[in-house]
């Protein structure tokens, strides 16, 4: 990664205000985007803070550093559009409007959690917000989102389905199969790859002979976009085009967004002392942190108000989780089958 540093420095130092002007983002949009980025960051930090207390009964794969991918895409989706997050899915779940109380209660294993305490962090779902359930098995939800899109198309709606996945998932056979079928049937799908460079701890050069992912995908017959700096406005711009195309019945699109996982693969901590990556690799990503980047575009007064509001919301959700009951033991056998 170090070889890319010079180029990244140039990209990351671009003027934030110019980016906004380029993307034509209005003030209310800016606040909404900031609120979403900030909420996700603070929720993840709060989870990391609580985690050592062992109150959270679920392994957590935090989205810190990768928030912009979910926010940039979900910001252009309608409430009736569908997303399929991954097991590192708190960001997509929150960006799409998933219940915060339901999230914390689920992590705590409480009956009031989105899955009644049976799913945990890796299986968040909120169908009331059209958030499909996440899977712990990499790549598994890609075709689920495609199948959902098939149903949307058959119902002659203009709703779309967006599926998030990491760079590792693109190595699974089901990824190629899903691209092919979605393109063949011209399904309203956005394939969004969060390329954070690592499959757990194994970096791209040890997994890919070339990093021309977009080229590979393009041959299936769909537009592809690459964003190499996680810029939320650029991503949003591509998402607008891709969603529009899907709504018009013109088929799927693919977006590869380079990003960086700040914390360890699973758990609340940093892991730069583990030897598989260097803290120096993280520095450019820290400098281009989209949460801070967008924060600088919001007047101080407004930002302070939004931040305070977010803290209240989180405190409320944590309190809700703390005070909620655990499920009763008879819940062990409910919902094995539907209709029983």
């Amino acid at each position, binding site marked *: 990664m170090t070889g890319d540093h010079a180029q990244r420095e140039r990209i990351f130092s671009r003027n934030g205000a110019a980016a906004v002007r380029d993307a034509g983002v209005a003030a209310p949009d800016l606040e909404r985007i900031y609120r979403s980025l900030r909420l996700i960051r603070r929720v993840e930090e709060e989870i990391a803070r609580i985690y050592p207390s062992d109150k959270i009964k679920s392994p957590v794969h935090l989205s810190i550093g990768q928030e912009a991918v979910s926010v940039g895409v979900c910001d252009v989706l309608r409430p009736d559009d569908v997303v399929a997050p991954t097991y590192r899915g708190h960001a997509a779940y929150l960006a799409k409007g998933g219940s915060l109380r339901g999230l914390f209660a689920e992590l705590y294993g409480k009956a009031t959690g989105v899955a009644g305490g049976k799913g945990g962090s890796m299986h968040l779902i909120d169908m009331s917000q059209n958030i*499909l*359930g996440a899977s712990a098995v990499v790549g598994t939800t890609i075709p689920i989102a495609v199948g959902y899109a098939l149903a949307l198309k058959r119902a002659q709606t203009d709703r779309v389905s967006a599926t998030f996945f990491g760079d590792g998932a693109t190595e699974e056979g089901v990824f190629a199969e899903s691209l092919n079928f979605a393109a063949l049937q011209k399904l309203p799908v956005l394939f969004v790859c969060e390329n954070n460079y690592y499959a757990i701890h194994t970096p791209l050069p040890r997994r890919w002979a070339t990093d021309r992912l977009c080229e590979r995908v393009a041959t299936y017959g769909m537009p592809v976009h690459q964003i190499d700096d996680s810029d939320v406005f650029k991503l949003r711009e591509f998402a607008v085009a891709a969603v529009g195309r899907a709504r018009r019945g013109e088929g799927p699109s693919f977006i590869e967004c380079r990003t960086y996982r700040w914390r360890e693969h699973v758990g609340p901590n940093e892991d730069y002392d583990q030897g598989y990556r260097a803290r120096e690799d993280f520095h450019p990503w820290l400098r281009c942190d989209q949460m801070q980047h967008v924060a600088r575009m919001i007047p101080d007064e407004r930002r302070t108000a939004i931040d305070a509001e977010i803290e209240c919301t989180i405190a409320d959700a944590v309190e809700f989780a703390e005070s909620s009951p655990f499920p009763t033991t008879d819940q062990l056998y*409910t919902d094995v089958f539907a209709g029983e």
Partner: protein
Amino acid sequence: MSSPASNQRVLSYVEALREGLAQEMRRDSKVFLFGLDVDDHKAIQGSTRGLAEEFGPDRVFGTPLSEDAMTGVAVGAAMAGMRPVHVHIRMDFLMLAMNQLVNIAAKARYMYGGQVQVPLVVRSMIGKSWGQGAQHSQGLHAMFMHVPGLKVVAPSNAYDAKGALIAAIRDDNPVIFVEHRLLYFTDAFVPEQPYVVPLGKARICTQGDDVTVVGISNMLVECLRAQEILTDIGIHAEIIDPVSLVPLDVDTIVGSVKRTGRLLVVDTAWTSCGASAEIVARIVERAQNGRPVAVRRLGYAPTTCPTTPVLEREFYPDPGRIAQAVHAMVRPEAAAWRPDPERAKLAHQVKFRGPF
């Protein structure tokens, strides 16, 4: 359910499947049918014939050879409220769809806290004979029985094929629908009107007091042929078709075994960790407070299915071997008995058409 009468209509297993599918697709616009070659000129042995013409390419369509993703597509569409019927030409290919079936379809209802359901039917065929060999012949239903959240059905005749398929399509859960290819052109009395064969209800096909014999899928037919041979020597077997393996009608089998004291399960699969092992265990657990139960299982030889007929013949249970096993259970003191091979061959000719 009806009893046979001369004016009743006889239909083959494939025709019954086709009719059940067509009726459900007419009844419910959410039902769609897909899988490799469902819309080609061979129409999955005829079981999908005419459906593409009647319902159009949006509801009946062939797919790329992508079992994994296509199963995920079916699951996603089912979560969105549709009712997919996904067809596989061989059960062996379901191994390519295991992640979606085991990790998502089976678990979605539970791990997503009841927020979704997956009304999905997965049709798959078990092949036999004509040198189909190692990867076109496997009965792998036990793999699916192992996982909570999946239903598993293996109809042995045209009547059940139609009624259980309709039940499976109307069920709000994923159902693995197991079809044995040798049953496809067997006939039964099949009512024209749509009807449901409930999943979880076994059928006592013949009554007898000497031994309870459970036959799964096409082995039910082989058991009925064996029973014919056994009747010649005065042994009366109670032959039970479980129809569905999950849920399993333990009560009916236990009721029979309590009377006979003997249980033989014959499966079109291996016995190790198989449906036969499960059925025997479940029945013995339930019946063990009464008199001792003698148990036995027959299934594929514990080896890979060969192609050459000389070896293949040794691989499968047949009516002669089933009859021999029953004889050994019922008359353990008697001298070893082998049915006359000519008689066993004749039994093969018998067609069972009901009553159901």
